[in-house]
C-alpha cells in the first residue's frame, strides 16, 4: 500500500516536473534523462535479467533514428505530433532487425557474446556512412521541425512522450520480472545449462528478451532523432551510447526494476552538467571517470541491491533488538509486587 502511494506520488512528480521547472535548459536535460532511463530499462530486460552483457544496443538506437528520419522524408510528414506516432514503428523496425542479430549472436556466451555485439555495432556505423543512397552519408538527414511550438512549450510534448515510453518500458520490465518467463531468464543468468535441463526454453527466451529490449531502444533512437531534428552516422551509431546504458545499469543495479532508472537519473544530468560547465577542456571526462572508479570500488553490485542489503540488515538488527527489549520487559513483569 505504502509502495503504491509512493509510486503514484512519484508519477505525479514526474508529470508535474516540466510545469514547475519550465526552463528549456532544464527540461532538455530531463528529456535526455528520461530517454536514457527508458533505454537502460530496456537494456536491463535483456542484459540485467539474462546476465548476457550486450554492448551493441547503439545499433538498434541508430536503426530507430534512421527509420523515423527516412519515414518522415519519404512520406513527407510535417513537423508536429504525427512523427510521434512513427516512434513505435521505428521501434518495430529495430526489433525486426534484432531477430537475426540475436539469433546469430546468442549462439555464443559470456565474453564471446560481448565481443560479437560490439562487432555488430561496428558493422552498422560504417554502413550508415557508406550507404549514401539511403543514409545520405556523413551529411546526415534532417527531420521535420515542429512549427508553432514556441518557447518553453517546445520541450513539453517530447518530455511527455519520453515519460510515456519510460512508463511503458518499466511496465513491460515489471511484467517480465513477475512472470514465469522472467523467472526463466533469471535462471539462465544463474546457470543456463541447468535451466535448460529443467525445461526452460533458453534459446527462445533469450531471443525474445533481446528483441523486446531492441524495440524500446529503437523507439528511444527515434524520439532522440526527432528531438535533435537531424541525424549523422557518428551520433546515431554512437559507441558512447553502448557504454552509457551499460554503466547506468551497473550503477543502479542490474536485474532490478528501479536500478536502471536511478542510474540514468544520476548519470545523465551529471554528464550534461559537466559537459556544459567544462566542455571546452574536457575535464568533465576526468570527473566522470573518477565517479565510476568510486562506484566500482564502493558499490560493485549497484546502488539498489546494496541499499536493499543494508535495509534488510538494519531490519534484522532492529527485530533482534526489539526481541531483546521485549524479553527484558517480560523479566520486569515477573518481579513480584
Amino acid at each position, binding site marked *: 500500500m505504502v509502495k503504491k502511494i509512493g509510486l503514484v506520488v512519484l508519477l505525479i512528480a514526474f508529470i508535474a516536473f516540466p510545469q514547475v521547472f519550465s526552463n528549456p535548459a532544464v527540461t532538455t536535460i530531463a528529456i535526455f534523462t528520461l530517454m536514457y532511463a527508458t533505454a537502460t530499462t530496456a537494456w536491463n530486460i535483456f542484459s540485467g535479467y539474462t546476465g548476457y552483457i550486450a554492448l551493441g544496443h547503439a545499433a538498434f538506437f541508430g536503426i530507430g533514428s534512421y527509420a523515423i528520419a527516412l519515414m518522415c522524408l519519404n512520406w513527407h510528414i510535417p513537423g508536429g505530433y504525427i512523427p510521434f506516432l512513427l516512434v513505435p514503428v521505428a521501434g518495430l523496425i529495430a526489433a525486426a532487425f534484432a531477430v537475426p542479430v540475436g539469433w546469430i549472436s546468442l549462439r555464443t556466451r559470456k565474453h564471446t557474446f560481448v565481443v560479437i555485439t560490439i562487432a555488430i555495432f561496428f558493422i552498422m556505423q560504417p554502413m550508415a556512412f557508406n550507404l549514401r543512397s539511403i543514409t545520405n552519408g556523413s551529411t546526415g538527414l534532417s527531420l521535420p521541425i515542429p512549427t508553432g511550438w514556441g518557447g518553453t512549450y517546445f520541450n513539453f510534448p517530447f518530455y511527455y512522450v519520453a515519460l510515456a515510453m519510460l512508463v511503458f518500458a518499466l511496465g513491460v520490465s515489471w511484467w517480465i520480472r513477475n*512472470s514465469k518467463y522472467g523467472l*526463466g531468464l533469471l535462471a539462465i543468468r544463474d*546457470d543456463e545449462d541447468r535451466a535448460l*535441463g*529443467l*525445461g*526452460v526454453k533458453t534459446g527462445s527466451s533469450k531471443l525474445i528478451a533481446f528483441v523486446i529490449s531492441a524495440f524500446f531502444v529503437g523507439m528511444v533512437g527515434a524520439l532522440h532523432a526527432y528531438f535533435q531534428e537531424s541525424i549523422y552516422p557518428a551520433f546515431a551509431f554512437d559507441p558512447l551510447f553502448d557504454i552509457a546504458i551499460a554503466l547506468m545499469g551497473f550503477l543502479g543495479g542490474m536485474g532490478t526494476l528501479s536500478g536502471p532508472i536511478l542510474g540514468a537519473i544520476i548519470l545523465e544530468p551529471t554528464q550534461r552538467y559537466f559537459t556544459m560547465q567544462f566542455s571546452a577542456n574536457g575535464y568533465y571526462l576526468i570527473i566522470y571517470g573518477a565517479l565510476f572508479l568510486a562506484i566500482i570500488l564502493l558499490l560493485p553490485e549497484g546502488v539498489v541491491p546494496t541499499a536493499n542489503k543494508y535495509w534488510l540488515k538494519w531490519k534484522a538488527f532492529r527485530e533482534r533488538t526489539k526481541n531483546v527489549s521485549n524479553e527484558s520487559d517480560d523479566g520486569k513483569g515477573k518481579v513480584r509486587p
Partner: protein
Amino acid sequence: MSFLEVNNVSKSFGGIHALDTCSISVQRGTVTGLIGPNGSGKTTLFNVITGYDQAEKGEIFFDGKALINSKPDHVFRLGLGRTFQLTRIFPRLTVLENMHVAAQRVGTRALLSRWSSSHEQRRALELLDFVGLTPLKDLPAANLSYGQKKLLEFAYILIADPSMILLDEPAGGVNPTMINQLAERIRTLNRQGVTFLVVEHNMEFVMSLCNPIMVMHHGARIAEGTPQEIRKNPTVLEAYLGE
C-alpha cells in the same frame, strides 16, 4: 522391459573409456543403488542418460521410449529428473523462486502467467516443507548451507512430478541427521511410486536404502544383487580394495 534400460553404452574422453559397453536396468518402483570406486563411470552414466553428455554407442530406453542422445530438457519433460554431485541451484534466486524454475509451462502461457500461481505456489511450499526449508524460503539460495542446497535441488526436481529421479551423491557432505531425513524422504516418495537410482559413497546409506545394488568398475557393471550379496561378492571387494 525395465523402467530404465541402458544397453551397451560406450563413451570415452580422449583415450579413457569412461563407459565401456555398459548395461544396466532399473525396475519400476525400486530404489536402486549404483556404487563403484572413484572414476568407475557412475557420473558419466548419469550424464549420458540425462542428455548432459552424448554417448558414442549403445541404446537407452526410459519407460519404453528411446533416450539416446536426447537433450536434457527433453529427458526432464519425459519425467526423468536428476540432481548433481556438485549441487546446481540458482544462487541469486530465492529458495522459493528456485522451486518455480522447474515448473515451466509450455508456449505463450509462460509469458502470460505469473510464477506464483496459486496451485504451483501451494505445491512449492508443500515440497519446501517436505525437505524442511520453509523458514528459509525468501533467502537467496546462495545463503544456504551445503546440505540445504542438496535438499533444495532435490525439492525443486520434485515439483515437476518426475516418475524417476537419479540422485548423484545425495548424502555427500551432508550431516548424519540430515542424511537420515533424506533417506526417509526418499522412502516416502518411493512408496508414492517414484523410482530412484542413487549413486553414493556412503555405504551405510546405500546398504540401508537401496535394493538392488549395482556395482560399476572401469566403465562397466561388474555385479548386481541385494545388499547382502554385494557385501560378500569377491569381485566387488577386489574392485574396491585392489588385487
